[in-house]
């Protein structure tokens, strides 16, 4: 944490031991570890970010980078209803609108879930209960937080279904999830999560399980609803195209940590971390020349039990030997500011990274 204090108290940068955050959502040094037979899995290991109302943060990374674990951590779903001995170990601070969630009473956090913060999941078919009608599930979500009779709640459910673009909502409200198409199910899921006007909406890979033709519609819907409700939105995805369209800020995760964070246009047009370059290189684009191939990130995601020493990305990084004295393999790089509100964690100097980006990477994209 000392490092981050040094690097600045600019907007969004975590400041240790200051209990009154100004941001709507502020996550400080979040760590989520899971004890297993093979060792401690450090799914999230020191993550900090903040988010204002009405803004959208895109969290990007490959499978196992800790994106979903982070979102479940904010929702308090690592501890709620987790039975058995092996509980997730969570530390750090999560401030939501002035309340620190990790130290708060679990029942208080439960009452915030669904009302203050809501979540949309990846696969709406498995995320909706197969035995209950769409209407019943939305009504349930509404009545948990509002003391109203079933009729009122049902009207509200129909109104929400209508709002998310489901035709004939007064009829469809009595359908079961299996009677909906994939896109409709995700719309219903969004209706359910927005029924209580939450101020924070977390969308965990909201379009991954959907047809490509439907993906754009769902993203448009999320954007429209955000404008209408003014909520803060976190979009979690491995698809840079998704965040490019929606996000104000982008946070790139690797091995449970943030490797680059900044305004979307900065991360896209002036990325300062080799992993982000890799992500951009492996994104298919129509305007790319046919002869040119995708540039994949070589190797596989790091083990979260034995995280590589030094920079977690070093075994896969083509530039690991650019910094001197083998430092990439011994010292873990901290996030340093590389521009206005733009941070990256890399041992290469600013000049080295700028040169590699403009001369070697950008021309190939």
């Amino acid at each position, binding site marked *: 944490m000392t490092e981050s204090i040094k690097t600045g108290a600019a907007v969004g940068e975590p400041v240790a031991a200051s209990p009154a955050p100004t941001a709507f959502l502020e996550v400080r040094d979040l760590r989520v570890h899971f004890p297993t037979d093979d060792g401690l899995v450090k799914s999230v290991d020191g993550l900090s970010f903040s988010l204002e109302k009405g803004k959208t943060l895109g969290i990007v990374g490959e499978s196992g980078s800790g994106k979903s674990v982070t979102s479940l951590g904010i929702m308090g779903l690592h501890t709620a209803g987790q*039975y058995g001995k092996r509980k997730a170990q969570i530390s750090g601070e999560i401030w939501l609108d002035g309340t620190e969630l990790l130290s708060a009473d679990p029942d208080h956090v439960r009452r915030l879930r669904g009302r203050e913060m809501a979540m949309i999941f990846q696969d709406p078919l498995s995320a909706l209960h197969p035995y209950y009608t769409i209407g019943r599930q939305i009504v349930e979500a509404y009545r948990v937080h509002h003391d109203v009779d079933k009729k009122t709640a049902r009207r509200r459910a129909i109104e929400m279904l209508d709002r998310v673009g489901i035709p004939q909502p007064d009829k469809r409200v009595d359908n079961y999830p299996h009677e909906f198409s994939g896109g409709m199910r995700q719309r219903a899921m969004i209706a359910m999560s927005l029924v209580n006007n939450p101020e924070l909406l977390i969308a965990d890979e909201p379009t991954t399980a959907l047809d490509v033709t439907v993906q754009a519609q769902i993203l448009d819907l999320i954007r429209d609803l955000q404008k209408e409700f003014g909520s803060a939105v976190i979009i979690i995805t491995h698809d840079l195209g998704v965040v490019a369209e929606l996000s104000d800020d982008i946070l790139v995760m690797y091995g449970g940590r943030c490797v680059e964070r900044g305004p979307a246009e900065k991360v896209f047009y002036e990325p300062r971390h080799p992993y982000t370059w890799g992500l951009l290189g492996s994104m298919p684009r129509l305007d790319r020349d046919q002869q040119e191939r995708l540039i994949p990130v070589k190797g596989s995601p790091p083990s979260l039990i034995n995280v590589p020493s030094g920079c977690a990305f070093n075994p896969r990084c083509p530039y690991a030997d650019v910094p001197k004295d083998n430092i990439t393999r011994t010292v873990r790089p901290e996030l340093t500011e590389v521009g206005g509100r733009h941070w990256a964690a890399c041992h290469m100097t600013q000049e080295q990274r700028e040169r590699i980006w403009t001369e070697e990477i950008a021309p190939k994209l």
Partner: protein
Amino acid sequence: MLAYLIRRLLAVVIMVLVVLLATFTVFYMLPKWAGQDIAVLFAGKATGAEQVEGIRTKLGLDEPLLVQFWEFVKGIPMGRTFANGNDVTECPAPCFGYSFVTEEPVWDTLKDAMPVTLALAAGACVLWLAAGVATGVVSALKRGSVWDRGAMIAALGGVSLPIFFTGMVAMGIFVHSLGWVHVEDSLSTDDSIGVWFETLLLPWIVLALLNAAMYARLTRATMLDVLGEDYIRTARAKGLGERVVITQHALRSAMTPILTVFGLDIGVLLGGAVLTESTFNLPGLGLAAVQAISSKDLPVILGVTLFAALAIAVANLVVDLLYAVIDPRVRLG
């Protein structure tokens, strides 16, 4: 839904007819193949050749098998008259055959035995469902705890111990040593509810213990599966309390596999809990079957088999219909 119901009912009728044909063939042809004269079996050993021929004519055993089968099926709704000259025996509808060992229609034997088996099954299944499911749910929620391990070891014991052992031990302790329970030698519909209750109490518990153990393990495994489902996470993400998540979201899904096994178990049980009834000397279908087998009373064996098959078929039909009630996705099929 109606088409579904009709289709299922039709399937039950066909299944029962197939079972009937198969058992009928086995019971009437097997002795012949084994070189035994079925008329001799019916008549008993110490009878003359003339009497044997008389019985053969009276029961129609000289007719081809298909004719005999048809007469049997026809007898169920219409009743039958067995006659050989002046020797006439009436078997009123529903006629499931006539036993020459007990000298009464098979239906009378079944009719007397059914209430006992029904009462035994009804009481036991309520007990084992309640105990088994509750234990299983608590075990799943406290996975890995002392309670969970203890319950699962106890359940393993419950599954492993045969009913004639637990039954004997229970009788020895509670009836003979402590004298807490007074047991009647036999039960009839004339006896009071109190007598039935007291006589059936130990059989209920012993039978329930065996099944509860199995249901506890099944419920635990199913609950653990369901608790890992995405929609359970969704339910929590909505801010629902844990009690609602468990009872309304998890348990409802967990009921489907439990119901499947329950349908089979109750069907088998209604056909006669042979071991329990023998151990406790309860005059139910199981005991009737055992007695019929030891006295080679073919018509009664056939009758009990038929009834058992019918019980299983009906229980499965009810389960299938309940599926449709529980799981809306089944209603499409």
